[in-house]
């Protein structure tokens, strides 16, 4: 088991995701119109010693991956933690094309036919293979880039969690380890329920990324229950939304995390070099590992 870096650099700021302000989202969309502007911020993060980029499988990440592949020396030791799927892509497709139409759209044609066991009719009966094909389709853009941890996004995790289809997690876990020799990770807005679900299907010491912040924002089930799990259970927590969408100052936010020595990493995104450096230093100072 390789320990994760203390600081993971996120990508929300690049794709107009602000949990606090739609207006801020728009400003970001304008600022990060070009891939070069994304790469510039990533390079700022690297300059202050951040070597892991945790990002959604957004179409534009494939351009970032091209850049990393084209500059192997520069990005030596740089890792990406992919988070799949980019949910809006699929949600919009389901609205526009329906379930079957969406599968047709996202399973590449050659993969589809190479499966060669009766096409769609077969695939739709064999959900594990279908899941594997969809994972492969999402992972294609990262070929040749180090991806030691591969996450499922919270919308999908929490949907499966609510439907209590926990076996899906076990199948995902097995596939990611087998095919990608990587560690599976789970992003969730329901940490305690998720921990129990993974434990119930025999997944031990999982990497779980969830909101952890001093004001209890997006900590479903309540802050106290989260604190209990963080103190008592055996898993590898990644804290996200630590600033509670900007409601907390960085210092007070990171100080709070130091109460939970099991927290392995902190995920955060920022656009300015100063802000990146400040948060990175706070995490290094306060997070004991």
């Amino acid at each position, binding site marked *: 088991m390789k320990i994760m870096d203390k600081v993971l650099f996120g990508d929300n700021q690049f*794709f107009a*995701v602000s949990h606090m*302000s739609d207006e801020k989202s728009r400003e970001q969309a304008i600022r990060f119109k070009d891939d070069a502007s994304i790469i510039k911020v990533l390079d700022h993060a690297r300059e202050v010693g951040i070597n892991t980029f945790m990002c959604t499988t957004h179409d534009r990440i494939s351009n970032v991956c091209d850049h990393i592949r084209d500059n192997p020396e520069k990005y030596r030791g740089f890792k990406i933690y992919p988070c799949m799927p980019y949910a809006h892509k699929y949600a919009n497709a389901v609205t*526009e094309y*329906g379930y079957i*139409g969406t599968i047709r759209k996202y399973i590449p044609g050659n993969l589809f036919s190479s499966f060669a066991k009766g096409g769609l009719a077969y695939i739709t009966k064999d959900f594990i293979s279908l899941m594997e094909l969809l994972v492969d389709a999402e992972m294609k853009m990262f070929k040749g880039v180090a991806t030691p941890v591969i996450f499922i996004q919270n*919308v999908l995790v929490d949907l499966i969690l609510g439907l209590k289809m926990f076996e899906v997690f076990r199948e995902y876990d097995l596939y990611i380890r087998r095919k990608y020799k990587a560690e599976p990770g789970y992003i969730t807005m329901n940490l305690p329920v998720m921990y129990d679900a993974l434990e119930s299907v025999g997944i031990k010491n999982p990497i779980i990324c969830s909101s952890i912040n001093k004001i209890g924002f997006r900590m*479903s089930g309540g802050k106290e229950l989260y604190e209990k799990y963080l103190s008592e259970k055996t898993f590898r927590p990644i804290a996200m939304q630590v600033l509670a969408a900007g*409601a907390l100052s960085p210092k007070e936010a990171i100080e709070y995390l130091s109460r939970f020595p099991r927290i392995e990493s902190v995920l955060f995104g920022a656009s300015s070099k100063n802000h990146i450096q400040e948060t990175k230093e706070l995490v290094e100072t306060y997070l004991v590992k």
Partner: protein
Amino acid sequence: MKLKGGVIGLGKMGISHAAIVNAHPSVDMVAVCDTTTIVLDVFRKFSKVKLYNNYVKMIDNEKLDFVVIATPTRLHYPMVKYTLGKGLNVFCEKPFCMNTVEGMELEKLAQQKGLINQVSYHNQFVGTFRELKRLLKAGVIGDLVHFTGEAYGNVITNDKGGTWRSDPKEGGGCLLDYASHVINLIQEIIGRPVKADGSVMKKIFSSAVEDAVYSLLILESGLSGNLSVNWCDETYRKMSTSITVQGKKGKMICDATEIKIYLNEPNNRENLDNGWTIKYITDLAIPVDFYLRGEEYSAQIDHFIRCVLNKKQTDINSFEQALYTDRVIELIIDDSKK
């Protein structure tokens, strides 16, 4: 004893309701119903819930306390009618019905039977919109002058593809889908429109339904405001809904993430300075025990379950309210044909 629930329709909204209902500590989700084989196959493989492709059979065979109906709008009327007829409480997707004749019948039936009824206008459970309503009621911006209700998103971005949402007979189109949310917010937060003027329904990519709706809505008090909705706007990553209200003492701009308040003079009771104040969803969100896509989706189901457990209907998102939204939709359609 846990409540027994069933879900009809497992599309994008139905599957999300099913997950929230299933995760609810007071509920046992015993059955789901859909006509898409692939969806039923997923449940068959990974879930223990009972499966139906016929809602009548599901309701007749299972002893349910409530049913969630999340099918295309055209099907709401027969399904809700059957469910109420069997004495079950109903949570129905929005918009309520294809026309007010159907809606009135269902509303009356729910009243007669004394059953809990709720429609999924989830924005009523978004903390910022609730705060906007409270601040308006407290009169912080004085007499109202004008309002604007907007929703933009990128559902349809080309002329290819198409599901029931692009079929007018099924209840497709931007007016019933996107605009109904905004109308519902306007009617509950600002006031109920009684007249629509200058209404335009525009096709952009769709061939059979409107992709944008623009209208001037007039309330009984004479206050008027604009409705502006477009679901072909690629500049939005996801649906974005906002309400702007202009008053004599200031202005408020509210969306699902924040409320921006501008006051001409300070308001001590509300602890608001003059000039701009911003309140964020981080302080206003309704806490939930299970989160999927937004607190509001769980909060509205929590509210419905609470009503069923307490056997007490509230006026939040009732059939009566949703029926009024359908009425405004008819006003806009009639006006656009003038």
